[in-house]
Structures are given as C-alpha cells and as structure tokens.
C-alpha cells in the first residue's frame, strides 16, 4: 500500500516537472524584430497612392475626409512634420521593433511588454497586470492604452485612448473614437500580429489586417530625432485641403493600374468576392507590364516609377 502511494506521488511529481506551467506556455515576444513586407508592400514601403481606398470599409464620412486630404498638409502644417504613427499603424509602418519584457522584480512574472520602434522613436506599452484603464477625461496618446490577456500562447491586446491618426498614409483618417484589438502569435522566429480596428466614424465595419516580423538578434536600434521647421511660408489660417468634388488625384490609381474606379473608392461592399458580380469594367485596361513600384526594396530603393 505504501509503495503504491509513493509510486503515485513519484508519477505526479514527474508529471508536474515535465508538464509546462501556465507561465511557460505563454510565448516570449521580447527581442529585436524586423518587419517583413510581403503583405501590402506598395502601401507600406513606398507608400500608398493618393485615392487608393481599396480594401477599406470606408464610411461616407471617412471617404470625404480622405478626398479632402491634401498631401501638402504634412509639410505646410508644421505640427504634422514629426508626428509618429499611432499604436495601430506603428505595427504596420516601415519600422524595426524592439520588444522588452517588463518583469515583476519579485516573481519574474511578465507584467508588460514595452515596444520601441525605429520610426520617430515611437514607444508603446502593453500592460499584462490587469490594471484599470484611465479615465475618459485623461489625455489620449499616439500609442493609446493597451491591455493584454493570454489565450494559451496567444496574446490578445485591446487598445483605447488613441489620438486621431490615419488608417492609410494617403489621407484616410483614423478618429479618436476608434479602438483596436490585436492577436500576437509567435511561430519560432516569426511573429504575426493581427490587428482589428473598429472606428465608428471612419469605418462601417472592423478592418482586419496582419503584419509579420522575423527575429533579428543582430539588429541595432538607432535614434530618429525629428525637429519641426517651417518649410514654406503660409498664412496662419491655411490648412491645405481639397474642397468636395475638386480633388484631381482621385482617379489616378484606377487609371494607372487599370482598375474600376468604383473599386478604388473603398467601402465594405467592395471588399468581398460578391462584388465581382456587379463590379464595373475599368476605364483603362491594366498595363501589359508593371509600371509602378516594380522593384521596390527596403526603404523604397529601386522603385521604378514611370
């Protein structure tokens, strides 16, 4: 009887040692990560074409805001010059990333992940200690307030308190009423972050995008110091914008790529396969050979714009 009891205890002890604890089942995201641009390359590296709203479930309000955008704004309005991406876009922009685990000094439990991006020295913290969100009257930030929870080895993150920013870098705005959810998944040396943005002002349904990173232990994060300067003289009350119906650049993307103009205007109805049944024909046929962004490498090197 006694030996059976001891054997049972021994089996339990071995099982306890061999089975992963709750903490060790959680993925470790710390390290240097380099973004991979096999997804949405033209949008993310050289930058999106003006008027390219493809794949965005834009609301009518969001579309008019985007149509009104004049790219001069980011140079003429000095306060825009050194703005970083917001927390949702920073995971997508052209920037390397360092992730540091913040640990409780006593238990060694990871209480937060701190992110630093190369572009504009963006920083972001994802809290894992269950702390409450700030008041709605507290300041909003570019990175917002992110709280993560574990679902097996997936880190689910929900972010609020975001400043106005952009959904796409061609003038599609992102309002300060938006929130976003992320799902962080690590597969060996690869990291995939799926982002789901909900914006009741700009979008009619959640926008789902994903980004993939590769671990790069040799990566060194430098400084990216930005200083605003007046680049062109302007009157104080000038904010470059296109009046409704006057933006001359909105058809370029359809013309250049041989796309139906209606599809480039975005909207949830253009995002799903059923749209092909009603999609109009393009005004111009698609070019016989690649004409734009054909050999784009890192930082836009080799882009053949014609």
């Amino acid at each position, binding site marked *: 009887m006694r030996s059976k009891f001891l054997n049972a205890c021994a089996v339990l002890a071995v099982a306890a040692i061999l089975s992963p604890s709750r903490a060790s089942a959680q993925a470790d995201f710390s390290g240097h990560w380099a973004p991979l641009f096999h997804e949405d390359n033209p949008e993310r590296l050289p930058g999106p074409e003006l008027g390219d709203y493809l794949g965005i479930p834009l609301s009518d*309000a969001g579309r008019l805001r985007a149509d009104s955008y004049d790219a001069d704004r980011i140079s003429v309005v000095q*306060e825009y010059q050194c703005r970083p991406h917001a927390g949702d876009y920073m995971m997508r922009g052209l920037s390397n990333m360092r992730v540091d685990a913040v640990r409780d000094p006593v238990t060694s439990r990871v209480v937060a992940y701190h992110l630093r991006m190369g572009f504009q*020295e*963006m920083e972001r913290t994802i809290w894992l200690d269950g702390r409450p969100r700030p008041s709605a*009257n507290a*300041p909003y930030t570019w990175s917002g307030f992110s709280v993560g929870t574990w679902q097996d080895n997936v880190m689910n993150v929900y972010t609020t308190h975001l400043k106005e920013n952009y959904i796409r870098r061609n003038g599609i705005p992102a309002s300060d009423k938006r929130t976003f959810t992320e799902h962080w998944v690590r597969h060996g040396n690869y990291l995939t972050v799926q982002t789901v943005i909900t914006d009741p002002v700009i979008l009619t349904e959640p926008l789902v995008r994903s980004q993939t990173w590769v671990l790069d232990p040799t990566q060194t994060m430098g400084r990216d110091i930005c200083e605003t300067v007046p680049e062109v003289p302007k009157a*104080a009350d000038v*904010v470059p*914008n296109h*009046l409704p119906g006057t933006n001359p650049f909105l058809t370029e993307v359809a013309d250049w790529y041989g796309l139906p103009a209606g599809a480039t205007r975005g909207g949830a109805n253009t995002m799903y396969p059923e749209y092909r049944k009603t999609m109009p024909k393009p005004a111009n046929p698609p070019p016989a050979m690649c004409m734009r962004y054909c050999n784009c490498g890192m930082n836009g090197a080799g882009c053949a714009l014609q």
Partner: protein
Amino acid sequence: MMWTQRGPERTALLAAVVLAGAVVAVARAQQPPALETLQVQHNVYAIFGGGGNVTVQIGDDGVLLVDSGTTASVEAIVAEVRKLSKRPIRFLINTHLHADHTGGNVALARAATDPLEPLNIIGHTRVLSRMTAALPAFKPGETTGGAERLRGLPIDEYFTASKDMRFNGEAVVLYHEANAHTDGDSFVLFRGSDVVSAGDIFTPGGYPFIDIANGGTVQGEIAALNHLLQLTVPGHTEEGGTYVVPGHGRICDEADVVEFRDMIVIVRDRVRDMINKKMTLDQIKAARPTRDYDPQYVTPTSFVKADQFVESVYRGLTR
C-alpha cells in the same frame, strides 16, 4: 408572463413602473453631479462634470480657479477643491461669460468672507460688461443692494491684450482672444506647470459654440486656436509637453488642438466657397458641408448641432 396579462393588473403594474421611473428620474435630478478630478500637470488639476471644466491651481498662496461651473454644481466643485487644498480660494478667472462657466461665481464670492484673504474674480472687461448688462435694472427709488448685485461679477477686469500675475510660485498669464467664441474670451497659461486653460474656444469632441450674439466669429476662433498652438510646445514624439484643459472634454495637448483647428479651417473653406458661389444659408445647410465631421463632433447630447455650427460660420463670414 406577467406582460401577457390583460386588464387592471397590467394597468396597475404599468403605472407602478412609470411611477418608479419618475421617482428615479427626480432623485437623479436632485443628486449632485458626479464630478471627476484629474491632475493635469504639476500643481494644476481639472474638475470635470460640473458644467464647463474647472481648472484648479493649488499651492501655499491658496487656490486659483479658472471658471466656476454651473450654479447647481458649485457645492460639489468646492468639495472637490477641498480634497486638493484647504487653503482659501483667492482667485477666480472667468474665461468667458456663459453660465456653465460662471454659474458658481456668486456662491464662491459669498463664501469668501475673510477680508485678509479675499476672492478676486478676474475676467476680460467684455465679460464684465455683458454680465453687468444682464443684471436686473434698479427699480425707481432703489438705492441699496448695489454690493449684492455686484457679487460674483469679474470686477477685477482687464482690457489689455494680456494680463499677468504670479501665484503659487508660478507665472499665470491671461491672454484676451478677441472675437473668438465670444468677444471676451481669455486663455490662462500656467507657465511653470506648462498648462493652458482654454475655455470654450477649444471643445474637442464637439463643434465650437461661436456665439455671434456675444461677439464671436469663426475667423477669431481660428486666430485664437492658432495662438493656442503658439503657446503649446509638445514633448517627445509630438505629444504631451504643454497640456490644454478645454472648456468641455478631456485633457488635450497640441496635437489635439491641431485636429480641432484643421476641422474648423476646412469647414470654413467649404462654407466660404459656397458663399462665393452665391448659395444661400439654407442651400449651404442643405449641402451639409460638415457631413464628414458630424459623426465625430455631434452626438445626441451635443450642445452645438451641425446646422448651428454651419450657420455660425456663415454669419461670421458674411457680416
């Protein structure tokens, strides 16, 4: 199951539910407003929920308030102030004349009974003029009660472009912003704490109330916001640094002011273009020049609706 019954039982139940709802509604109306106090930066705080936002600066010299909320909430506001400081309230600055920012003036003035630590109420002279004009006229033969009439008015007025003072160890600078949301608006810069109290010139989350009847104009509003952008200096990554307490809404910084300013400029440009095309006010309203901003700036409880904002822009451009 009960809701499927017919007859007197159901009628009685419905009446009870309606009565209970009415009682709850009355009780809620009688409850003091739920206020929230947040530290903005250093020794400057903001109280939310008592009408317009109230900015509080504390220190050894006493308490300085920017705006006094509504009459109904002043007691709760003072209770919040007392959680921060037991020192006397020595200064009250009115950013403008509206009752949700000056409603507590009289009660605060009545409470300041120590002549050695008096309450000075400061505002631009236009605020004093308009608040005085709104007082009831003296009756024929009435010769007393003048002091009581003056109680709560910003008689410590200024008529210059700016006014400065030092209180609680930091420079406090008032700037008159002419013909913006009204003709008597003031920004209050706490230079040491690096905080600006902006009053209703800046109302993130809602269109500005450009009070044409009290001297407001859209061009003055834009000019004032541009001045606010000069007063604010952002911190690292273009956020934080100088914080701004708006007249209504959350604590902000320069980037938030930029978005608000840009919205007004863009709407101004659209309305001006329509005026140049000889469109009438009704036609401009029907064209909905704010339709892309409405989901962000208009809610069911908004004080300023889209048409009202468009009309104020139109009036400012055609006067």
